[in-house]
């Protein structure tokens, strides 16, 4: 499954696709959830929620493949 299909599936509510998207962006989320070098679980949860919101609200760019 390529990224566009995965994103589309997640936007349609496929939980497995959402979980895969979160796993894909886990390193970014872990990095941003660190406070003074320590992973803040509450912040991490909030950022995961924000990621799911971003998935739902993102509009894929319309590109014609050359």
């Amino acid at each position, binding site marked *: 499954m390529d990224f566009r299909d995965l994103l589309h599936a997640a936007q349609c509510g496929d939980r497995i696709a959402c979980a895969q998207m979160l796993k894909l962006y886990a390193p*970014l989320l872990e990095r941003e959830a660190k406070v003074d070098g320590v992973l803040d679980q509450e912040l991490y949860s909030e950022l995961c929620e924000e990621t799911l919101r971003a998935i739902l609200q*993102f509009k894929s760019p319309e590109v014609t493949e050359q």
Partner: protein
Amino acid sequence: MQFRNDGCGIDNITRNAFTAYLKLRIERKRRDILAKRARRELHEIGTDFDTFDVSGPEECDPAKICGSDPVTWHNDRLVRAFAALDERERYILTARVLDERGFDEIGGVLGMTYKGTASAYYRVIGKLRDMMKE
């Protein structure tokens, strides 16, 4: 190991666009959450009352009592006033204000009547108020 893509192809373009969009949202959310926490911490007082010293207000250092940088405690008068209360007064105040317990329940623990507990509570409030005016 994941490598950055070359940005070619609709899939990579979509992926890069989403990643950039997500990064921006995550950074903003993080900033907002940490700013909100910092604002809340300015107004909170610790509830570790066992560390309070009862030897007298002039010997009470808010930093020593609350175990943190004194610069962050903006209401050190309240901390000193609280530390000057005796154990019973502190219990009545914290049980009523923080645990929201009734006077009869508090009185049951201390062996007092409802009226006695209520009077003691309002005396403590008045005492704190007077000490903070000094």
